[in-house]
């Protein structure tokens, strides 16, 4: 494999805005998604900044209460539906799934492009809603406040999420069909990279869960517009039924957010330990177990909603069970590190961050699965800290680690390793300073979704806001250098990290059709014992 940048590749094969906006190349679509998703991350991050600024002082003195309600609501909606759920699958998944299985593209390239347009349409509805005054219901849209009492504009946001849900379904559909039907000769299911298993399981969740979100939104919108009574007790309806509908999707949604990141971790930890994954079948099976078990626990969001105590007990037990496959993964990644030849390139720093932070997030999740504890800390900052440890400490770390790991393949350039390591460390420090105090705040009783709080909580809140500033800086630095290095970075070889996997057998950047003919696979995944460490590595010194 030549180490020189190929003359023609997917980035320069054609120029002009139309060659991008009408592309069918999954790699270009991945970059289009990168742009959209990054924009939404910045929007969601701005709302986070406003939240943390308000919470610097105990009094609600920066925003009025109603405005603050809109700010945390929009932070949640934008981050969940327009960054975390699409994020890794739409960017890394779109780019890598065909390449990892030796295919020329996804099964349905035009559906893939449609999926991106639908994402943007949904985002547009949401941004429009922000401009005309936002929504203040919390990202959970609980009724009857959202159907009857709020004066904010629910319908545009509901429409935006509905349309983006379709985008998500089309991506999931594409991945499932592609993985089933377009694997290269010799690439049996148990030779697949775990990144593929993770995205397959994620796609199963997307297909089973998102339609229920869709019908929930339809019923919500119908009720609001036509004053029907599905969820309004004044009209005979049941608000708890709304919660069942909402959480049936929104709990599995968190597994949509974490599973792809877990797939990234498997790829990076093996490469930078120069070792096969420990317990491949268990890691693969645990992805499916998480996907399926994750649908049986939604009632743990409703422990204090007047759901039956019996149901609460059952959901509590099931929530304990769903932690097991995640724990299996953490054990197996750790065992992979054991006696590995470990190096600390930027992607690996994100892996270590993930391992620690996801473990904390997961263990606090187990605490919350206990009915008795949850009754005490429900709707406090303990919950907020728990899910940010998983979504930010887990998913965003995985996302950034993956972006760095595959950036040489995506762009044909090497990101600056020094800046990469520095920002990973800044992010780690900033993250913990932001969110660890929130565990304590929640335990002490500070409720979430309030813009004012008792004086004695100020010190911890100031720490949290300081951490958030550091975290923000940490996120902005890669934004700058990843874009910078696309033009001015050092040219990358086709496989600078010496990784296994079909995607590394192509030039960097790859040609449009990825492989001139389907490669033949004869090896298990992660056969690091069979290949030498690259001489000096791309980042030696």
């Amino acid at each position, binding site marked *: 494999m030549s180490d020189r940048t190929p003359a023609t590749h997917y980035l320069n094969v054609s120029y002009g805005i139309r060659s991008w906006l009408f592309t069918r190349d999954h790699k270009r679509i991945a970059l289009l998604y990168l742009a959209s998703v990054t924009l939404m991350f910045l929007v969601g991050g701005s709302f986070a900044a406003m939240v943390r600024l308000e919470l610097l002082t105990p009094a609600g003195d920066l925003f009025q209460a109603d405005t603050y309600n809109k700010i945390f609501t929009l932070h949640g909606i934008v981050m969940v539906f327009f960054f975390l759920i699409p994020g890794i699958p739409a960017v890394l998944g779109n780019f890598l799934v065909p390449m990892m299985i030796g295919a020329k593209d996804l*099964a349905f390239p035009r559906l893939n492009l449609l999926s991106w347009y639908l994402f943007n349409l949904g985002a547009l509805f949401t941004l429009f809603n922000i401009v005309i005054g936002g929504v203040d219901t919390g990202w959970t849209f609980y009724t009857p406040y959202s159907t009857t009492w709020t004066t904010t504009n629910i319908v545009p946001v509901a429409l935006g999420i509905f349309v983006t849900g379709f985008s998500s379904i089309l991506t999931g559909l594409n991945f499932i069909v592609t993985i089933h039907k377009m694997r290269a000769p010799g690439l049996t299911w148990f030779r697949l990279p775990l990144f593929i298993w993770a995205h397959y399981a994620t796609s199963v969740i997307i297909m089973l*869960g998102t339609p*229920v979100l869709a019908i929930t939104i339809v019923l919500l919108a119908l009720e609001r517009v036509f004053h029907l009574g599905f969820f309004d007790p004044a009209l005979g309806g049941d608000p708890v039924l709304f919660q069942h509908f909402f959480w049936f999707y929104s709990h599995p949604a968190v597994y949509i957010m974490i599973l792809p990141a877990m797939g990234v971790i498997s790829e990076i930890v093996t490469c930078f330990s120069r070792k096969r994954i420990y317990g491949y079948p268990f890691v693969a099976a645990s992805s499916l177990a998480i996907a399926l078990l994750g649908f049986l626990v939604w009632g743990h969001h409703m422990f204090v909603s007047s759901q039956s105590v019996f149901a609460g007990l059952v959901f509590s037990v099931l929530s304990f069970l769903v932690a097991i496959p995640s724990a299996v993964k953490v054990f197996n990644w750790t065992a992979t590190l054991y006696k590995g030849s470990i190096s600390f390139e930027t992607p690996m720093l994100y892996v270590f961050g993930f391992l620690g932070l996801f473990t904390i997030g997961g263990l606090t999740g187990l605490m919350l699965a206990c009915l008795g504890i949850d009754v005490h800390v429900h709707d406090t900052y303990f919950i907020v800290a728990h899910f940010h440890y998983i979504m930010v400490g887990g998913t965003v770390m995985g996302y950034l680690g993956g972006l760095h790991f595959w950036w040489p393949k995506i762009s044909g350039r090497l990101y600056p390793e020094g800046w990469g390591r520095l920002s990973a460390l800044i992010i780690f420090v900033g993250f913990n300073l932001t969110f660890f105090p929130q565990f304590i705040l929640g335990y002490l009783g500070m409720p979430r979704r309030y813009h004012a709080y008792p004086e004695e909580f100020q010190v911890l809140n100031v720490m949290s806001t300081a951490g958030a500033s550091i975290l923000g800086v940490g996120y902005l630095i890669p934004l700058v250098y990843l874009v910078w290095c696309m033009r001015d970075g050092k040219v990358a070889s086709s496989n600078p990290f010496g990784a296994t996997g079909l995607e590394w057998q192509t030039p960097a950047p790859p040609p449009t059709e990825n492989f001139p003919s389907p490669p033949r696979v004869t090896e298990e995944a992660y056969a690091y014992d069979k290949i030498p460490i690259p001489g000096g590595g791309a980042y030696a010194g």
Partner: protein
Amino acid sequence: MPAESHAAAAIHAHQFEDAEQQRDAVTLGMWAFLLTEVLFFGGLFTAYTIYRWSFPAAFALSSHHLDVLLGGVNTVILIGSSLTMALAVHAAQVGGRGVVGYLLLTMLLGSAFLGIKAVEYDHKFAERLIPGASFLMRDESRPAHLDPAGDAVVAAGIASADPGVEADLQHHAQIFFSLYFAMTGMHALHMVVGLGLLAWLVLAARRGRFSPAYSTPVEIVGLYWHFVDIVWIFLFPLLYLIDRHA
């Protein structure tokens, strides 16, 4: 990509290795999409179940206000359209000449279904059974009678003399009709989309696009159409036939 003649090799998109892989992938794709539709309509059926379990009397009374004859005729029409759709698929698969004809028949039957649905909706409007401010559910089996205290006449058609109970009944009946319009409306929307897909198939068939080597689009639209039929197969008894023996 080498040029391929229609008669010899079947055509396939560049990302697939051959026509068979394409057909397998497209079929699996349509089934995966139908899986999402099962979950989508499943949400409505779940809401229906919870509320029917909660308010059995209101649901039974409301169901009696639907026209079994029109619903039954529509069921026959829709199943008939599934038959014609299956025959269209068969014609495409064997290269017969009936493809366009069977597709048009399917569209005709589908349109007839929607026409009857429109008539039913119109009846509901006339009977004041559209949920909203003007909703009023009457129980025709109740003649005018004295209230339990014996000092006032309860008008004919009112189910209960107790205003609290009567108000609840009206609310619960509105939930039935909200579900009725949501479920049949969503179903009708899917039929309209289906008609659009069928029209596209008719145009393609007239241009000779389909042959034994390439009939996949007809097959997968057929799958979609049959699914929409199956949804109605469940809607009919659940909406129209509650406690009809009473």
